[in-house]
Structures are given as C-alpha cells and as structure tokens.
C-alpha cells in the first residue's frame, strides 16, 4: 500500500466515524460561504455598474486659451503625472461650438449672431473606470484646477460621491462577511478537528506507538479539512446560484434589466472561491492538528 492509498483510507475511515461532527462543520462552512459570496456578488455587480458609467464619468477642464501642440503635450504630461487616465481629448473652440450646435437640434437659430469662438476650449479627461480612480476624482479635479490656464473643472461630483459612498459601504460589508467566513471556517474546522482528535485519541496514540510518520497522522486531517472546504464552498455557491436565479426571475423586471445587467460570478471566480475555501479549511485543520497533537 503506498502512502497516498494509506492516507486516503485513513481519511475515509475517520470521516465515516465522525460524520456527525463533520456535517455540522459542513453546514457552517456552507452558510459562511453563502453569506460572503452573496455580498461579494452584490459588490461585483455594483462595480459593473461603475464600469458602465462610460461618458458620464469625465472631467471637463475649461481653458482660457486654445493650447498649441506643445502646451497640449505639457497638459497631457501633467495630467498623466497625477493619475493614469483612459483617454484625454482636447476640444477646440470651434469643435465645442459644433458640438453645442448639434445638441440644440431645431433651436440652432439662437446661435445665428453669436461668434463661433465664443465657447472656451477644453480638455475632456476620461478617468479609468475603476474605484481607485473614482476615489481620487475629487483630488484629481483640485489638482487640475491648479494647472496654469485652467478656468474651471466640471464633473458629476454629487453622483460620483454618492456612488463612491455606496461602494465603500459594500466594501465594508464584503470585508466583514469575508472576515466572518474566515473566522467561522477556521473556528469550525479547529473545533471539528479537536472533536475528531478527542474521539480518536487512543487510535492516534496507537499509531504513534507502531511508528506512524507525522505525515501519516497529519495528512488525513488535512484532507478532511480540504474536503470540507470543497464541499462546503460548492454547496454555498450552488445555494447562491439558486438564490440568484430566483431573484432574477421574480424581481429583476425589464426596467431593472435595462439599468443593470445582474450577472453571476464567472467560472474563474467560482473556481477561485472554491480553491480559497479549500486552502482555508485545509490550512485551518493543518494548524489545528499541529497545535493539538504536536506532530
């Protein structure tokens, strides 16, 4: 019998003997994963909304003079020095006039006696559509105002700040639920391992007396933890998926669908959550067994 076969059979034997304790741990891990992934799903969908802000999220920097090519380059350099941006567009006086005229549609007559260079030139800055850029947008606008030749900086300040607060709140909730997941998982695994060790105390003592290696004693507990992590996280994500389908079918009407596209985790995210849960549970059991048995 090779090492793997021996430890697999040990693991199976241990699970068969202590399945009641293991079941309790499994349910706790499933619920913890469900709570964490629920908030994480809401958070990631909110981020998607942030990513779809598109043209609404831009800073318009009005200038007093039309910048020449050198000045444009200097502005670009200064802007990029502060933050990475998606793109920068220089809008000249005439282009601004044309755009404005286009927006007026049938009322273009009002511009008849107005000179075509009456609008100031501007720089349109499209920040990267992520939360880091959003969080820095206020500071960015203040920085832009300090640049020479800048008359005014405009952006949807109120909306951005509200959205940012909402995302910050979600971040806290995700962080707390993630911490809850880690705490409950490690506590339950530690507790479950302690009970298993207690119920198998005589057997473990005998294994030492007959010369079992540390790995022979430790690895089955490690595998038990990993198995609990895999089953618990899979069950938690499956429960979340059912909840997601139910909410999408019953509550997400067409109007909401137009505003947001509520989507589930990608396969890679699901795999990552499962792998992290496995690592967390296996690591928890590994640490517990080292502590309890000193092997």
């Amino acid at each position, binding site marked *: *019998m*090779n*090492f793997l076969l*021996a430890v697999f*059979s*040990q693991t199976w034997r241990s699970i068969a003997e202590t399945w009641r304790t293991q079941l309790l741990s499994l349910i706790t891990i499933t619920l913890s994963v469900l709570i964490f992934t629920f908030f994480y799903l809401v958070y990631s969908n909110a981020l998607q909304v942030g990513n779809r802000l598109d043209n609404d999220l831009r800073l318009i920097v009005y200038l007093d003079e039309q910048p020449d090519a050198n000045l444009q380059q200097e502005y670009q350099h200064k802007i990029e020095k502060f933050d990475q941006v998606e793109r920068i567009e220089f809008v000249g006086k005439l282009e601004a006039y044309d755009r404005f005229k286009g927006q007026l549609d049938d009322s273009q007559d009002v511009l008849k006696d107005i000179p075509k260079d009456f609008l100031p030139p501007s720089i349109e800055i499209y920040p990267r559509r992520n939360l880091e850029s959003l969080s820095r947008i206020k500071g960015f606008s203040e920085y832009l105002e300090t640049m020479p030749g800048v008359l005014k900086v405009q952006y949807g300040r109120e909306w951005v700040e509200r959205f940012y607060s909402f995302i910050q709140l979600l971040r806290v909730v995700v962080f707390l639920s993630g911490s809850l997941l880690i705490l409950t998982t490690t506590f339950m695994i530690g507790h479950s391992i302690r009970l298993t060790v207690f119920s198998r105390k*005589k*057997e473990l*003592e*005998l*294994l*030492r*007396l*007959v*010369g*079992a*290696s*540390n790995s*022979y004693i430790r690895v089955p507990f490690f595998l038990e933890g990993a198995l609990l992590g895999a089953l618990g996280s899979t069950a938690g994500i499956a429960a979340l998926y059912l909840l997601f389908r139910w909410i999408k079918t019953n509550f997400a009407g067409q109007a909401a669908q137009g505003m947001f596209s509520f989507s589930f985790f990608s396969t890679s995210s699901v795999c990552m959550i499962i792998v992290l849960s496995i690592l967390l549970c296996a690591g928890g059991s590994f640490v517990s067994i080292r502590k309890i048995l000193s092997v």
Partner: protein
Amino acid sequence: MSGEEKKLTMIDLARVSKTFPPDVHALADVSLRIRRGEMIFLTGQSGAGKTTLLRMLCGIDCPDKGYIEIAGYDLSRISGGEMQKLRRRIGVAYQDFKLLPDKTVAQNIAYSMEVSYRSRPFIRSQTEKLLTELHLLDKQDALAGKLSRGEQQRVSIARAVANEPELILADEPTGNLDTETALLVTQLFRSYNEQGTTLLIATHDQAIYDFPGSKVIKIENGRLAIQKPPTLVKKAEGKE
C-alpha cells in the same frame, strides 16, 4: 565495542537508571547487551522493573541516567523521524494490550502493517495466518472490546509480530492465557526467533522459558540479578 560487534548487537544498555516520584527506583544501573537473533526472557516479581525496562526500549519512557541503543540508534539522540522508523521495526505486545475496542480484530492487527505501507493482500494474508495460528480466525470481524482478556492478549501479540519486526518486546504475553494457549504463543515466538527475530519477553510464567537453552535474566528491585546461562553478555559496572 567494535564495528562488527555493534552490527551484531540489537539492544545495548549501559548503566540505565530510572526513578519515579517520589522516590521509587524502578531501574538502577542496568547494563545489558542482547545480540541480534537472541530470545531473552526477563523475569522478576511484579514491580521489579521489567515493564519500565520495556517501555524505555520502545521509547515511551526515557532513562534518568545511562545509555540505550537499539539497532544502532542511540535513543537519547534519535530524531523524531528516526524514532518512527525504528518503531516500525519493533513489535510490542503491551501488558495492557493497547487495543482499540471499537475496531475489529483484523483492523487492530492491520495498524502495525498499514503504517509501513504494506500492500492490502499482504495485510489480509498475514492477519489470517496469525489468527489461524493463534486460534482466533473466527473472531477476525469481532470487535476487540467484545473479546475475553485472553483473546485480547492474543490479538495484541498478533499485532506485535504482524509486521515481521526485527525486534519483538512482549510484556507478560501469557498473563491471561491458559497453559495450552500459552504454549501456542511460545511456539509463535520461537518460530519468529528461528527466522532471526530478536525477542525480549518479560514474564513471570516459568512454563514458557523452562526449556533447555533458554536465556533468562532476572531483575530484582530494579537491578539485574541472575542470568542463565552465564554466557549471556552482561556488562558489569564500568567495564565492557
């Protein structure tokens, strides 16, 4: 001790002492050398120090003073990993059996072989062979906790020899057995000894060592007292 002599030695004890609190001298200056392939009976009254000596030989207890070497390993300097490997080469039949009552007889015996990663067919055939020899084959699926003391003792002996160890330590292996079954156990031990296994058997049962050529060491109040025959190597205090 020369290199050749060292190779031939299975157990080497030099001036080993052990005291339990408050002031019980379980062993005092015990020196002894047992060669590979020998079968030695350790006799003496209850409390003489036989069990303490065996427990130190299998690494459960440590001496307060002195030196113990088993199969070339100095037990005071042995690493954890080496101790585990050494224990796989030693079969021990404990006085309290150390059986798992909620496991079957076959499972109890299998432990000593599983930790050495023996194949399943080997474990199965070895278990059946030993249970047949010890007249316990019909009990192989019975829970160890449901067996009589005598049956439990035989299971403990089967587990001690199952992994074909180089050294067998047995503590009162016939203490709960009738004469006929004790003879079965003695025959089993002798058959292992004939194959080259070293045996150290602690016993009060004169019947199992009362045969021509048997090697007996008597221990009294923690000291080696009488040895039979005199050729048995004993290291006197301070000299080889």
